[in-house]
């Protein structure tokens, strides 16, 4: 079961959105978030919603997966809504004791919640439709320009992909160590939070020791296979733009332009 673990929240299916170059999806996420902050008023948000629905339908990812991402945000959503409702000044429509609710307050609260919901769904669309490996590749390619200011983009991407490869192995290892400790009478189940945390210590130490040993082995294996940084490295599957990627860029820009125009024209 552990072996089948999927990292992140990638939803495996075949759709137009899944097949897009990861760079396009990164651009989508970025521009979509910006567009949410440019837009104001119900018309803009209806426009953003329509675009989001279009992408969701194309991605073939069931809506409940998007909603799952929202559950973790619930507290933040409620808090930001309450703050807006009570603190925004304006034409008062309801008053009780020291609390007052203004018309403008309700309006901003609703818009704020809608904006946050769209933001979360929009960015989880990327992780739902892109494998972590593709995502790493896409990030490496699109952030390449940062090399100019000496940010080791290739190295960071390599670390990310190695981390992804070793997560399932380390999870398996944790289970193994846990069983070995339970067999010798360790108790991970009972007690309060502090006691449980303390019980983790004999689990973490062997895990760290083994992780370091693995890292040292891996470094040796990489050196034996002529790894010497990103300089002069080629790729088996380099990212190349297809026709559909350019089309997606066009649609994305069209949407973004539309949003700017709308925000400028509408009061």
């Amino acid at each position, binding site marked *: 079961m552990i072996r089948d673990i999927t990292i992140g929240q990638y939803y495996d299916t075949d759709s137009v959105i899944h097949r897009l170059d990861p760079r396009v999806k990164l651009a989508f996420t970025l521009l979509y978030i910006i567009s949410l902050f440019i837009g104001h008023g119900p018309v803009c948000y209806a426009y953003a919603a329509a675009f989001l629905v279009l992408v969701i339908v194309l991605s073939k990812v069931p809506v409940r997966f998007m909603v799952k991402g929202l559950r973790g945000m619930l507290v933040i959503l409620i808090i930001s809504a309450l703050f807006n409702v009570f603190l925004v000044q304006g034409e008062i429509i309801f008053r009780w004791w020291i609390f007052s609710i203004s018309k403008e307050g309700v309006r901003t609260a609703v818009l704020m919640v809608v904006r946050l919901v769209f933001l979360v769904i929009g960015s989880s669309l990327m992780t739902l439709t892109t494998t972590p490996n593709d995502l790493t590749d896409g990030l490496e390619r699109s952030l390449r320009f940062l090399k100019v200011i000496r940010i080791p983009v290739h190295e960071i991407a390599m670390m990310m992909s190695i981390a992804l490869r070793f997560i399932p192995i380390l999870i398996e290892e944790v289970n193994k160590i846990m069983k070995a400790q339970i067999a010798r009478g360790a108790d991970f189940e009972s007690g309060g939070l502090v006691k449980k945390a303390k019980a983790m210590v004999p689990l973490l130490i062997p895990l760290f020791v083994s992780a370091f040993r693995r890292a040292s082995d891996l470094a040796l294996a990489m050196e034996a296979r*002529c790894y010497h940084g990103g300089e002069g490295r080629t790729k088996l599957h380099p990212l190349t733009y297809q026709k559909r990627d350019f089309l997606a860029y066009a649609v994305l820009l069209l949407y973004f332009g539309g949003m700017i125009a709308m925000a400028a024209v509408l009061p």
Partner: protein
Amino acid sequence: MNIIEILHLIHEYKEYDENETETETVRAIDDVTLSIEEGSFVTVLGHNGSGKSTLAKHVNALLLPTGGTVVLCGQDTLKTGELWQLRKNAGMVFQNPDNQIIASVVEEDVAFGPENLGVPTEKLEHRVERALEKVGMTAFRMNSPNRLSGGQKQRIAIAGMLAMKPKVILMDEPTAMLDPVGRKEVIETVHELNREEGITILLITHYMEEAVDADRVIVMDGGRLIMDGTPREVFSRVEELKECRMTVPQVTELAFELKKEGLPLPDGILTTEEFAEALMKLRT
């Protein structure tokens, strides 16, 4: 032609105690001279701590000599500036199959070596395909390495070496963590590569059975090279091998004990078939 040329190799490292003060200098390899012919299959045997792994790591310059020289394909490892240029000639397969697979997809892992060498993308595809074919793992090309058995993972690691088109493959106890089935898989694959591709193999192991089919067997103990010869020559020296805490293959030992008891058997019997034949001859 000799592909590996080792002359008076010495390797020392310093041991430190908890306060990081030097306690002693350990000599892991002590004056080893050895040359290995191109296309041969050489097995290095030795007990834990005999220096056999250290020796192999000198060949592809993962370790550099404290004294003496190591020459691989005509290049002195101490005098070569860019060591990765040298390492493409000698691939190395390690003991733990999990700790040497770098990518999350089989084909991408096989491509890792040639990617580092800067092989153009059009040629990579072909290299990966051929390497996987050679180790019989084509069907698993798109799989995640996590789902493979130990033997399969080691074959992927071997394919990763093959894709770099090396002249030598160094195997550092590649079967130590495998079950008998996986062990057989790996050893058979390596023999095939030696026969069909003419790749020189340096197999480090402590399983005597794996040494039987080699062209040459080298025995190390305490950092020194103590025996060097064909498997038959080496395994007929049962007493000496036992002195350096090594066992000979079971059937060899049985024949040796029987001979000691007075049965006129030949020296250095290596396989069960051979032993059976020798016994049959005795009856007539």
